[in-house]
């Protein structure tokens, strides 16, 4: 009995050791399986709307009217477009067009004007919106914050043609703006910290600012949101799904919440599981 107890204990230890030293590529495989399953068999989980998204939506609803001018600084990277930017950007831009606001889109990232041209405006229902009258894509301007500052001070010094090489004096809506004071709302779509836009538009011109960003920037934007410098922000896939819920336009955001759930539950499980294994390993080492 004693010898079988020792054999059983050795077998159990071997099993535990194998588990503790498991190749992490098995965890990668588990993550892939958990992400794949809800894509093939969606569950349709509900989603709670968080305060920053709700405030962004309510600000637009209560303050933006027909013919108001919205300046959008696009800083998107194409790598984040499909699920991080797309839900929020499409839902928000659709909302602006439904209200009848005018959109001035200018880019501070090289990939952004192509994303705007190929993915954003072709996707949304523009209704009676006409290019050059209701919305315009002004293209990319290098320098990041320097371009923002130059544009805010004097638009004509920077912009002579749009992304499609049409001279701006042929675009009716460009005659209505000369500097930052002419805009009613300024948005930055970016994965970077919010200081650029806030320094050049909120601080310098007192403009109301909002952000559409990737999920990772949530914690970084919160202090500015808490201090009132941001009216609200839509962050990543989850924020996009929330905005789709609020506007009643379900899209890729809401369709992806199941997979996000399984990914996060797996991650949380991994934190607990690996720490339990770590404690087991320590105990085995002591023995």
């Amino acid at each position, binding site marked *: 009995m004693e010898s079988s107890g020792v054999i059983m204990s050795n077998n159990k230890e071997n099993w535990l050791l194998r588990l503790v030293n498991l190749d992490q590529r098995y965890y990668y495989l588990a993550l892939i399986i958990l992400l794949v399953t809800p894509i093939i068999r969606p569950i349709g989980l509900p989603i709670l709307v968080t305060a920053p998204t709700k405030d962004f939506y309510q600000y637009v609803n209560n303050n933006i009217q027909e013919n108001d001018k919205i300046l959008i600084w696009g800083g998107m990277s194409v790598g984040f477009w499909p699920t991080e930017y797309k839900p929020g950007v499409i839902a928000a831009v659709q909302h602006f067009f439904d209200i009848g606001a005018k959109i001035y889109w200018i880019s501070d990232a090289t990939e952004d004007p192509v994303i705007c041209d190929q993915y954003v405006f072709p996707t949304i229902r523009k209704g009676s919106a006409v290019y050059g009258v209701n919305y315009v894509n002004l293209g990319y301007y290098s320098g990041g914050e320097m371009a923002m500052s130059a544009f805010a001070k004097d638009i004509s010094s920077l912009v002579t043609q749009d992304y499609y090489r049409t001279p701006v004096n042929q675009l009716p809506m460009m005659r209505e703006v000369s500097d930052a004071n002419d805009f009613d709302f300024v948005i930055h779509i970016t994965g970077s910290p919010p200081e650029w836009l806030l320094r050049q538009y909120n601080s310098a011109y007192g403009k109301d600012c909002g952000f559409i960003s990737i999920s990772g920037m949530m914690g970084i934007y919160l202090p500015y949101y808490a201090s009132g410098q941001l009216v609200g922000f839509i*962050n990543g896939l989850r924020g996009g799904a929330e905005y789709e819920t609020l506007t009643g336009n379900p899209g890729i955001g809401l369709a992806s919440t199941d997979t996000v759930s399984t990914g996060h539950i797996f991650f949380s499980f991994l934190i607990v599981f690996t720490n339990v294994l770590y404690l087991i390993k320590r105990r085995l080492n002591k023995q």
Partner: protein
Amino acid sequence: MISQDIGIWIQVLLIFMYFSQLYKDNFLYRFSEYTLIGIAIGHGVVLAYQNVVSMVYIPITMRGEYILFIPITLGLLIWTRFIPKYSWISRIPMSLIMGLSTAIAVRGAIKTQIYEQIIATIRLAIIETSTLGTINNIIIIITTMCTLSYFLFLKKHEGALGITARIGRLTMMAMYGNTFAWFYMSRVASLLSQMQLILLQWLGLG
């Protein structure tokens, strides 16, 4: 049904090539990585050219703003960086860029990052809210000051400063944990888009 679109096939092929690095570093992964770098750099050059045409060529040819030959000259001088004998010349246009970027950052930082944030913290001490809200506000004020004390490097972190710096460090650890979790969500969302492309658009499942 599997996709017939050549574009989708190219996308999926490149995705599998890139993901092959999870198993082992290999030629296919490096091929996809170099493809990304080449296209991204090329795209940047194209956009830079469009920028210069828009901001220089059109004003000179249409509006006669010949003074813009000065920034063109200065811009070309930036490229002397690659000629060892004359690379010091590139400091002059770079100093213009450095000066302006610093100036616009500093003038905005005073209000945006310092004044507004301090006012927001002080305001928490006077706004009326529930008991739990008041407790939270007090915690925010104390932990903000403790975090700031962590960045005081004029004195060694011992005694009272050591305690506040430790609280500041713990607060930042909680912040990093929060940020880490949100960055993970960002990456899972990107991975999700790849899975959707492969399963729904390429293989036609779901």
